[in-house]
């Protein structure tokens, strides 16, 4: 098992090189200049030249790439060239927010998607099945931006049940000192239950908005995996033994059907982490996606490079964890 992990981690090295090279090349292939973003309509060719010189943007690209790689290896992500903010520190301040949102979205998709998939499989071709699959399809087809605004207007503006955006309210926010950056956990650790309620209330809408993306996939995959498993011989045996149907489905069938679902959930977690840009923007969520997006618009090379490298490595690591979790769900799988 340990050997397997080490081998997988070593496999990260070429992945890492590939990611950095790709990000670097793509970013420098987009036309545009950070100096122009900074000075806007005011930029003169002389000032642009001076700025490029100062920021080291006049070096040949291979040299710039090696410099970038070298500082990454020293765990030095550098500073944003637009704002001067140190990138490592900014990732440190923001990653937990993104993780909390992504995890909540995935949780939402599991809590709704798995039961919907099971019911749809058990009542195959019934109206429940059709309804569940249609709803999940609509969910995935609706643009997050639009869905987000819809949720905000319905639940925050018209009904007033939930806060429109942000991570924590104004009065709850005073003096709330995060420890880990995961606000839900921090509120628990601080025994601050007023804040906890408020933080959870802030999480609901963005988690739903973001969670609809994997929801359809989770629901549909659960359904098809369940259908396949339910037709297996051992299920017939279990039923023949006289087990309660509930147990046959939840214990014997579901556990075996879950394997592909878990793979997809793991992949989705990584995808959501990087695609939460719109959700984070519309819900003013102080995460990584919103920050990278701003960096792309401003041609802030170090921010985008650092941010994307961070997200990609996280993505790879999460997939490793998913692979390792197979052993729990299917004891026949062993890692050598």
């Amino acid at each position, binding site marked *: 098992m340990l050997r397997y992990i080490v081998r997988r981690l070593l496999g990260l090295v070429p992945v890492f090189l590939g990611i950095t090279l790709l990000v670097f090349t793509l970013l420098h292939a*987009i*036309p*545009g*200049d950070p*100096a*122009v*973003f*900074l*000075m*806007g*309509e*005011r930029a*003169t*060719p002389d000032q*642009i030249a001076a*700025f490029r010189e*100062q*920021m080291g943007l006049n070096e040949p690209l291979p040299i710039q790439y090696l410099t970038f790689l070298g500082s990454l290896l020293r765990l030095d992500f*550098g*500073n944003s*060239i637009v*704002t*001067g*903010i140190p990138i490592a*520190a*900014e990732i440190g*301040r*923001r990653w937990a*927010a993104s993780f909390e949102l992504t995890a909540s979205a995935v949780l939402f998709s599991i809590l709704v998607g798995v039961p919907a998939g099971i019911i749809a499989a058990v009542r195959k071709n019934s109206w429940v099945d059709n309804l569940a699959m249609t709803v999940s399809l609509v969910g995935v087809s609706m643009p997050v931006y639009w869905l987000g*605004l819809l949720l905000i*207007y319905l639940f*925050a*503006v018209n009904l*007033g049940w939930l*806060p*429109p*955006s*942000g*991570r924590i309210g*104004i*009065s709850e*926010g*005073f*003096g709330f*000192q995060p420890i880990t950056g995961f606000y839900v956990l921090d509120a*628990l650790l*601080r*025994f601050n*239950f007023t804040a906890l309620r408020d933080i959870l209330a802030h999480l609901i809408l963005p988690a739903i908005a973001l969670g609809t993306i994997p929801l359809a996939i989770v629901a549909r995959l659960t359904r098809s995996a369940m259908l396949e498993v339910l037709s297996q011989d051992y299920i017939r045996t279990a039923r023949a033994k006289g087990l309660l149907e509930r147990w046959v489905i939840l214990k014997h069938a579901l556990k075996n059907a879950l394997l592909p679902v878990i793979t997809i959930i793991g992949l989705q977690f990584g995808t959501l982490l990087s695609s939460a840009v719109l959700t984070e*923007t519309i819900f*003013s*969520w*102080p*995460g990584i996606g*919103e*920050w990278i997006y*701003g960096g792309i618009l401003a*041609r802030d090379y170090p921010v985008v490079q650092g941010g994307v490298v961070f997200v990609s490595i996280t993505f790879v690591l999460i997939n490793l964890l998913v692979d390792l979790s197979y052993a*729990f769900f299917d*004891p026949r799988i062993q890692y050598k």
Partner: protein
Amino acid sequence: MIRRWKRWRRWQPVLLSMVFALTIVLSNCGGSPDATDSPEASSPAASSEQQALVFGLGGQPANLEPGNITDNNSIYVHEQIYDRLVHFEPGTTSPVPGLATEWSASEDGLTWTFTLREGVTFHDGTPFNAEAVRVNVERWWDPASPTGYRDAGRGYEIWPGLFGGFKGDEASSLVSLNVVDDYTIEFVLNQPFAAFPVAIGSGYFGIASPTAIEEAGPDYGTPGSTAVGTGPYVLDEWRSGDRVILSANPDYWDGAPAEEQLVVRFITDPSARLAELRAGSIDFTVELAPDQLQEIEGDDNLEAVFRESFNVGYLGLNTGFEPLADVRVRKAIALAINRPEIVSAFWGELGVSDPHFLPPSMENFNANDLEVYPYDPEQAKQLLSEAGYADGFDLEMYYMPVSRPYFPTPKPIAEAFAADLSAIGINVSLQTKDWAVYIEDSKKPPGFQSFMLGWTGDYGDPDNFYYYHFGPGGTTDIGEWKSDRVIELLNQARAEDDQGAREQAYAEVDKILYDEVVRIPIVHSQPLLAQRTNIQGWNPSPLGSEPFNTVSKE
């Protein structure tokens, strides 16, 4: 059985810790409600939390370091923390004393002497004096300043943008900086610059505590660090991507803030900002889109607030492109575009169409006998045929790929221009480029044949609008069009101290530009702001931001 036990062992720690956590939660719920040892209860903010004023800003500030920012989000927060040497009368562009109580130029107009306000201290207790001003100005101007942290990537791009260059550059307007005594400082310039006090008073140049800058090092003004000024509010905390928390400076020299606490939340999306305002979770906000006016007016708890326009959106005509070298053709274009209709369609109440390049907030510098070119396609056609283009010609028109306050929806606006021009036989093909490339390429000869662009003022003086667009070196995007008289007048107004004479010079510039039609002013747009009805004392400045010490909440 053994396998089951193994599996149980694997999950045991997780389950136990969950039970533990649950126990803590439950026991705490039933426990004493006045958990006085929690950090929340001891926070000084707890008492005033109901009163906190909440402002919805259009995004996170780039940083809180004066001289190193150009974005509106930063300037808004700067305005609360820092003062500048020169301030502006609320709601106008007229200069009034800020950290300097008076200022004057020498006979030859080259030396500006500022007398500083006594008895002011920075939020960290450092006294404000001429030395503090020197340290701040040197960081922006002098590449060798030890607290400029240029090695760590500080650029101070705005300084050469407004003052020609850094120390040592030939074009630098500032030649030397002299501390005369504790409360007097002199700026020596290479040529007279009448707008200097107004320019140094622009929102970029807040005066920061030299002690704080030195202590924080290159991180000064970033989320994990500090930002210390003399302004109405003191920075307590900056939560990156989320909010800035400020508390009142009770000793503020220009009147302590009406509210004890100010929270600035960063909400990038305009629809989300308006939703927050309607839900009551923010009290006032800026940078809303023109089409949101109706929604604001439909909500009884909200009020639309208007900021006087301080920008111009124009259509640039490149005289390097043959047909446009003839002024009759340029005039024909001005006559063919139905400005009143376009402005009312795209801006509604929020756009002003007038014949001037300068926004209405500086109307005293305009020629007052000009009329907007009327919509007259017949006369336009006649001018075209006089110029030898009776059959029209093909014209490339570039529209901006991004939304700016002066052109919120560039493409549909460009389509409206194209439709009007096709009526007089000019075939417009619409083009665009990535924003950064757009600006670069427009200035690189030969430039674009025609293009949409605009300008938002940095400070309240015509020089800031005119010199950049019509001064020497400012016309590469319009085929090196030049008017010696305009350049002469602009230089004269730079050197002139007398207000009346300056007004006269700029009025003549206005007239010449009106006749030459190289940049056709299409619109001066008013930014749309909104507040909840229980907010009072907000007086938006045409310059784009204002301190909130007068704003209160009922």
